[in-house]
């Protein structure tokens, strides 16, 4: 199983995403924004960071990268695609996911271990969870406020396309506490928090058991492996 991670100019968490893929049991493949080549990968991760310095709008310039033409085609053909933070922003700018992400309502950059509820455990990136499961993974963003018009929000809620919801506190003013969403088919998922930073004991969020022992993010990547194995 080969999972590609696209590096854009200004990506920061591409190496962490590659590491998460490896820890989950798949082979990470480094993909380059300027290529028109997915190197035959089975799934794709768009990692976090600040592509193009967040110029124009977060993710907007990266959404026009050469490789995004292939990513969009692959996504439309059913390939699992996960967008994390800046990757989520790129997915909405590419219209692979609905809605938009705006500056946090309180105006500050936020970095915290964030509790989430898995609302949809039937997607390519969430099937190793159970619906309603509560997880904790890091969140770090300045422009993570998810918004969409009333009709789109109603559709996302009604069709089960809300994948993750913030618990305890809404950290950025997102509509309906939405932390992540999926497309109707369930192969494209985007979220602001960072599963790749919670995949190895010693480097994750604190848990009741031990400091930095949280690995709730690992199941995102094992989910994709399961989804691909089931095809």
């Amino acid at each position, binding site marked *: 199983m080969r999972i590609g991670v696209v590096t854009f100019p200004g990506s920061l968490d591409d190496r962490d995403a590659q590491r998460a893929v490896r820890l989950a049991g798949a082979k990470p493949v480094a993909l380059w924004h300027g290529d028109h080549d997915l190197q035959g990968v089975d799934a794709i991760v768009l990692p976090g960071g600040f592509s193009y310095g967040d110029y*124009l*709008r977060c993710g*907007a310039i990266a959404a*026009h990268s050469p490789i995004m033409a292939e990513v969009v085609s692959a996504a439309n053909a059913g390939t699992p695609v996960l967008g994390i933070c800046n990757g989520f922003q790129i997915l*909405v*700018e590419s219209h692979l996911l*609905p*809605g*938009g992400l*705006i*500056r*946090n*309502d*309180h*105006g500050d950059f936020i970095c915290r271990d964030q509790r989430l509820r898995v609302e949809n455990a039937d997607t390519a990136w969430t099937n190793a969870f159970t619906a309603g499961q509560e997880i904790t993974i890091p969140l770090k963003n300045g422009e993570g*406020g998810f*918004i*969409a*018009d009333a009709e789109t929000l109603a559709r996302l809620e009604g069709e089960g396309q809300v994948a993750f919801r913030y618990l305890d506190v809404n950290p950025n*003013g997102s509509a309906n506490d939405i932390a992540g969403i999926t497309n109707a088919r369930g192969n494209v998922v985007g979220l602001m928090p960072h599963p790749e930073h919670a995949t190895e004991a010693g480097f994750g969020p604190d848990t009741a058991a031990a400091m930095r022992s949280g690995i709730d993010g690992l199941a995102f990547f094992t989910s994709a492996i399961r989804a691909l194995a089931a095809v």
Partner: protein
Amino acid sequence: MPIIVVEVMPKAELLDPQGKAVAGALHRLGKDQFSAVRIGKRFELTVDGTVDDALLAEVRTLADEMFSNSVIEDVVSITVDGEAR
């Protein structure tokens, strides 16, 4: 060379935290004449050649599809050398 100016604003119904922060700063400076501030973007496109209808149509498309994101922003004006088009 002619300059086409495209102006983009965050949608009126959406919170503009950047504008809100500036409004807060104005208030702290004692400038209480202003009840709100909203901040948008201005794009100046210097044209190599003349501006015709085809180019303006292309700029309109770019304004809608690249310079702005219709989910969160509106294109509020497109002008050429100061004249609305």
